């Protein structure tokens, strides 16, 4: 069974600091996705990572994928308050279903 774990679950950081969110998954997949959810809102797609070594960057966020280690990271550079949100990673189940398995989410709070 494909399982996805994120850590940390909660992250409170000062503006201007750097930090990394980790996403580990249990079985083979080469398709990993990052989403952002603002309080009370739906999910918004951030990154799609489709191969080993893939790296995507948008503003202060950079995501990478290591399929051999079954690990993706979301790195935050010089955090700003606007990045406060919950971040989810998800992995596509490549066993023949069309499911996406989501991590538990990381609630990020950036303090001024």
């Amino acid at each position, binding site marked *: 069974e494909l399982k996805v774990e994120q850590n940390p679950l909660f992250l409170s950081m000062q503006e201007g600091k750097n930090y990394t969110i980790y996403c580990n998954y249990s079985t083979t997949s080469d398709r990993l996705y990052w989403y952002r959810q603002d309080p009370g809102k*739906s999910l918004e797609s951030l990154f799609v990572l489709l191969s080993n070594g893939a790296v995507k960057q948008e503003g202060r966020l950079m995501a990478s994928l290591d399929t051999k280690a079954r690990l993706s990271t979301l790195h935050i550079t010089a955090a700003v308050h606007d990045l406060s949100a919950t971040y989810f990673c998800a992995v596509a189940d490549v066993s023949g279903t069309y499911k996406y398995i989501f991590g538990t989410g990381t609630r990020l709070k950036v303090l001024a």
Partner: protein
Amino acid sequence: SQTIHQWPATLVQPVGSPLSLECTVEGTSNPNLYWYRQAAGRGLQLLFYSVGIGQISSEVPQNLSASRPQDRQFILSSKKLLLSDSGFYLCAWSVVSVRDTQYFGPGTRLTVL
């Protein structure tokens, strides 16, 4: 461009009442469709997904059901709501190949009293 609609946006229902939530997608054909539920402050729970008209896969055995009467319409139903059915219900779609990401609708916030 593709868009996804959900309604209603907010719903307050008494325990034991029926439920019908609707999701429609525009601008694409034969999408995979998904229903998720999110309890307050929690992650996403996959309830149902569909790869075609009339094809429904259930992930959670409970008092909910789903139907796909048309290619781009996905309906979530219940005959009798429970308190535990309260939550934020999200519909999502993706292209059949699953190499693309999922796109989420705006959600329906359901409160069962």
